């Protein structure tokens, strides 16, 4: 177990080093060089040289990369050129907004998509399956931002401002019913402080972004669950069980369920990954103050320390999710355990 986990961790660290090379190169190939961003238009050659030396840009690339890695390990991600604050502080303060959004959406997708996918597999080749497959294919083709705008049109435009258009909470609500940022998750913080109107408002602001993110991934997850479930149902021992007349319910819930745990883990990892990627678009549609909208704003203003930090952070998070999934494989799959 430990050997396997350490092996995976070492592999992940190797990949992380590659990710660091990618994020490092952001600052080196960004169209407007950091010098230009810092000094504005037409700096004198002396100014340029001074900044080059102060940033260490006169050193060999390998040395620069080494310095970058050391800085990252010390938690120093530089100062945002846009907000003027340390990037780490910006990322930490916005991270929870993205977490609240993506976790709720992931739960929703898991709760609907996985049972739906199993249903389609069980009812394969029936009209239910055909409708399900066609709908999920259509769902996977629908642009994420269109889902969000469509929901805005219906719930804000059509139904007369039933739900808020954008943002995380009404600014007046926050003034009238303040709550301390204990966890950074508004639903939990407002409940802990007993500020019920704030809780209701935060929940109302969450509905549309969460729905958008969930609907977009639902199609992918349902299809994936259906196909992996079908593969399991096609295994020889399941066919044998049927041939011996084992009741359907026993086949599905006792015999087929255990081997599906492994692909289910893959699905869980995939869902979280889809959420992290999709959150960039959703946060842009709903003006959600998370990491996605932060990185989009940073790109627009060539704020390269912020772009580097968010990219590194999200990639690390995704790698960590995959590491957890890999380790859980080991827990549920006796074949891996016996091989080691």
């Amino acid at each position, binding site marked *: 177990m430990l050997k396997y986990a350490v092996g995976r961790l070492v592999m992940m660290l190797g990949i992380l080093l590659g*990710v660091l090379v*990618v994020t490092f190169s952001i600052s080196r190939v960004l169209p407007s060089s950091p010098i230009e961003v810092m000094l504005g238009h037409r700096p004198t050659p002396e100014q340029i040289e001074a900044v080059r030396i102060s940033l260490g840009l006169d050193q060999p690339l390998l040395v620069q990369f080494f310095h970058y890695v050391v800085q990252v390990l010390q938690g120093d991600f530089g100062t945002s050129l846009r907000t003027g604050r340390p990037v780490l502080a910006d990322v930490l303060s916005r991270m929870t907004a993205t977490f609240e959004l993506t976790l709720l959406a992931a739960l929703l997708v898991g709760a609907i998509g996985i049972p739906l996918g199993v249903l389609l597999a069980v009812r394969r080749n029936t009209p239910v399956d055909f409708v399900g497959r066609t709908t999920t*294919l259509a769902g996977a*083709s629908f642009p994420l931002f269109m889902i969000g705008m469509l929901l805005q049109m219906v719930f804000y*435009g059509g139904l007369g401002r039933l739900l808020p258009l954008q943002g995380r909470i009404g600014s007046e609500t926050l003034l009238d019913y303040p709550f301390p940022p204990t966890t950074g998750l508004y639903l939990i913080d407002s409940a802990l402080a007993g500020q019920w109107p704030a809780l209701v408002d935060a929940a109302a602001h969450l509905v549309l972004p969460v729905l958008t993110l969930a609907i977009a991934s639902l199609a992918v997850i349902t299809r994936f669950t259906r196909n992996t479930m079908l593969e399991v149902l096609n295994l020889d021992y399941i066919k044998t069980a049927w041939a011996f007349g084992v009741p359907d319910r026993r086949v599905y819930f006792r015999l087929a369920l255990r081997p599906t745990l492994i692909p289910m883990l893959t699905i869980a990892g995939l869902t979280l*990954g889809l959420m992290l*990627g999709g959150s960039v678009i959703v946060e842009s549609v709903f003006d959600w103050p998370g990491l996605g909208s932060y990185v989009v704003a940073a790109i627009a203003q060539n704020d390269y320390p912020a772009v580097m930090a968010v990219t590194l952070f999200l990639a690390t998070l995704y790698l960590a999710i995959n590491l957890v999934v890999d380790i859980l494989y080991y827990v549920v799959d006796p074949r891996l355990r016996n091989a080691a």
Partner: protein
Amino acid sequence: MSAPGVPAAAPRRLAALGHFVADQPLFVLGAALLAVVAILAMLAPAIAPYAPNAIDFGEKLKQPGWDHLMGTDSLGRDIFSRVLFGTQTSLMIGVSVLVVSMAIGVPIGLAAGYFGGRVDSILMRVADVFLAFPPLLLPITITAMLGAGLFNAMMALAISWFPWYARIVRASVISIKSEAYISAARTLGLPTLRIILRHVLPNSYGPAIVQGSMDFGYAILATASLSFIGIGARPPAIEWGLMVAEARSTFLANWWTAASPGAAIFLTVLAANLVGDGLRDILDPRSVRRD
């Protein structure tokens, strides 16, 4: 399959086509949709009633009607004409991203799969780094590096997606490498490059084609997303995602400004997905079929 009394050649061919349509209705629908998109792209200059970038403030935000089939946007531009010209951009995006990412990924996959060993592990570790980013984050980051714009967004997608092709091709190369005809070619002393190009490649690109037909749609979808957040196509380019982005300030009161370009993206991507799904069934005999 065929009925006993064998009919004449032409009706038989027609019957075979009928069988195919009945067997793969969604594939045929998708292929037909893609054909329509291609035809519209070619005929756009002839069909479009207005110049796609012609601004006419007197006609701004008109509802869909006979003068403007899909209405006009906030600058009075005819949305129907713009959607039509957008098909050209979208086809160009789909084809370019596909060609570039395959051109990088397929040779890498061939090399990794055929030579194995150290070549394989180095190439695949590089691919792992590219696959370590959540979907869409890497294209966003690379576009940020290259600078916003349609061409850069397409290149960013191609660079982000090539590892998928490398992996897919590598897997199928490994599965056919031990086949007798490859050993025979080697025993005969054929040059390695010739073996790879003439014998390995033709027998291993099937799964990559399936992936490619899906990615054709996803390239259009992802480029639209990049345009939507402001780092993809920029005016005066006519791109559906950019059209939706430009409609963000108007769509709540004027739904048609976002609806038509959004529907165009949806239908084109759906068509590509239907074709890809059908191709998987057709090319992969092991895939789970309707009994």
